[in-house]
């Protein structure tokens, strides 16, 4: 066995020497994109419409995938009009699925480049890029005697992941879900079936007719509110209101939230730049290149032509937004991203973090 292994490694070395300066997987990726464990990818196995604005994608992750915990999300990289963009989506399938597939459910948000693209263009056979699953929004162990899930819109997705995999371990589950209309409820049929079978108590709120849910409404709908371990996911205003309410009720420890943090973009006004590795923080006014801001603050910055043509000054934008000083183009990074930007012609367009 050891001999065979040695032979295999040896043969692979020879192949590597032949393909230099690229690696053999650059060739193999064309034929078998899922076998490369260094670059995690997934193939779209099926596309199922959920509502008229959302689809569920069944994905077959390639080598390198790590089993997820219910409630976690995965960053998905999609080429939209030639540009690779990354977004986070909650995994809605159970990790125990026998075929190793995972599902994500994408809700087309207005002006959402990636979500609109996926809802309109995703097809069976399409290759997406993946990161390993991550996220702290998980059920606790041991499982709570009484659980409450408060969700709104696509906030149901991580909760659906939890229900599908662990509902049999939970005895008393209340789901309070808000959506614009009855038809807009993602997983509506499945939730109603679970309710009809008596496995969950479902409280649907259709905000178009009933108005937005307020924490005070919750008190009425769920009388034993603070006796329950609660998981909430939805728009920031809702989560803020819930957190205040739970804190007021001295039950903050019972509430777990998952929130989407929108990137702050100032209109030409600059922002705080954090150089993550050296820890330097600089206030900028949005008209000075990041390279100059960094150098003036004593950060050792790579530099070159200082006019945007040589790409020697490129550093990763880890979070936040920067603006190209030449044409005003914005580049926005979400946590987890690492988008190379030219610091000599980019200025902060809001608070941002630069890897240097």
């Amino acid at each position, binding site marked *: 066995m050891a001999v065979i292994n040695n032979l295999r490694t040896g043969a692979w070395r020879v192949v590597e020497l032949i393909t230099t300066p690229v690696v053999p997987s650059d060739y193999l990726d064309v034929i078998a994109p899922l076998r490369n464990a260094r670059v995690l990818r997934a193939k779209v196995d099926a596309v199922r419409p959920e509502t008229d604005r959302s689809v569920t994608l069944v994905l077959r992750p390639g080598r390198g995938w790590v089993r997820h915990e219910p409630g976690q999300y995965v960053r998905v990289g999609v080429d939209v009009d030639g*540009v*690779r963009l990354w977004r986070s989506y909650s995994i809605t399938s159970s990790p125990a699925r026998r075929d190793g597939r995972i599902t994500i459910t994408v809700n087309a948000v207005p002006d959402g480049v990636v979500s609109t693209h996926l809802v309109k263009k995703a097809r069976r056979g399409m290759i997406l890029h993946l990161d390993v699953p991550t996220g702290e929004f998980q059920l606790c162990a041991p499982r709570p005697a009484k659980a409450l899930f408060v969700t709104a819109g696509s906030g149901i997705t991580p909760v659906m992941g939890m229900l599908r995999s662990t509902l049999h371990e939970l005895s008393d589950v209340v789901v309070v879900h808000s959506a614009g209309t009855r038809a807009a409820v993602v997983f509506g049929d499945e939730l109603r079936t679970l309710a009809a079978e008596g496995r969950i108590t479902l409280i649907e709120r259709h905000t178009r007719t009933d108005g937005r849910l307020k924490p005070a409404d919750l008190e009425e709908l769920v009388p034993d509110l603070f006796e329950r371990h609660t998981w909430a996911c939805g728009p920031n205003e809702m989560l803020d209101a819930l957190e205040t309410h739970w804190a007021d009720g001295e039950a903050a420890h019972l509430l777990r939230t998952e929130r989407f943090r929108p990137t702050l973009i100032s209109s030409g006004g*600059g922002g705080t730049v954090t150089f993550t590795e050296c820890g330097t923080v600089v206030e900028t006014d949005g*008209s000075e290149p990041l390279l100059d801001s960094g150098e003036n603050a004593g950060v050792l910055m790579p530099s070159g032509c*200082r006019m945007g043509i040589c790409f020697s000054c490129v550093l990763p934008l880890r979070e936040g937004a920067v603006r190209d000083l*030449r044409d005003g183009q914005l580049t926005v990074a979400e946590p987890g991203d690492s988008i190379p930007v030219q610091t000599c012609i980019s200025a902060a367009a809001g608070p941002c973090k630069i890897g240097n």
Partner: protein
Amino acid sequence: MTTIQRKKSNPIAHLSAEDIEQIGIELDAIRDEVMGSRGEKDAAYIRRVIAWQRGLELGSRGVLLFSIFPPAWLVGTAGLSIAKILENMEVGHNILHGQWDWMRDPKIHSTKWEWDHASPAEQWKHSHNELHHTYTNVVGRDNDLGYGIMRVDEDQRWTKAHLGQPFYNFLNMCFFEYGIAAYDLELGKNLATRKRRQNPKFRADLKKVRNKIAKQMLKDYVIHPALSGPSFLHTIAANATANLIRNIWSHSVIMCGHFPTGVETFERTSIEGETRGEWYLRQMLGSANISGGKAIHLMTGNLSHQIEHHLFPDMPSNRYKEIAPKIQDLFQRYGLSYVSGPLPKQVASAWYKVFRLALPNRGEAAVRRPVERKAPAPSTRWRRAQAPAVLADAKEPALP
């Protein structure tokens, strides 16, 4: 050529400072239009070229396993030569310029790419993207003017060593990739003194080049021939030939970029406090195109559009063709000469200069006219004469 500042009749004397900034504004508008319209088609283009290049290289190396048979040798060598040329020109050179960075594909990114060349990408990017493209045709700043071994401008000082430059140029042509590696290392300068030789940065760079060359050699002259068994020697010959063809081709194309008649050079002090418009103008006058069809554009990595490339080094190469008529029109409107010609003519013109300047200046050129000196001033070449609309409300200091 003589630097524009020492010329008897200055070809840009008719342009006012406003004209020059206006040229910059027009060029920025052309740039914005193309850069804003990059999309799926462009991404598909570069991926297609890469796929074809790799397919051709793999196929040719496969055929060369049987290179003992003359037809296989011919087909394989021709294929591998084309593959190597494509890899260096349309793929490598352009990716390393960051032309495809906008796709955010880490596999096709200037910071990650490595090419089939003796010089490691990192070092080449420094000497090429940073020095040559910023200081294009500035005598004393742009080492591409003669690569430090030749005199290609009347304003470069003549020494007896230059008598041999046609021969150096021939050698450089045959071993171009090694010439480039030595050039990127600034070997001449760095080997000159003991202190420079022992500079840790230089030693580290040298080691990287040695490793890169070793790998390249191992591939072309050991592993691939060994795999071809009885065709061992034939494959060595085939790979050497492909490398030679690639070297001669890329050397010729690159000579056409800045050496042909009609291309202007600039004085060292002329770029003090250079504005964006002035930088653009220098690129316009300092480069020459190669006219021809689609095949020429592809095989030269679109350096046949050298002028457009020098104006917008980070614009995807497949888009130069569409902006060329607009650039030509701009030249015409501002009374400037757009230097272009077929490959054989431009190569001959460049070689003629190498021969001519092997000898000291004679006649008119021997008279060195004084230049007006500019006081040292920082350059803000990134700053546009007209700020983009979205930034107009930001606190922008006025142009110096």
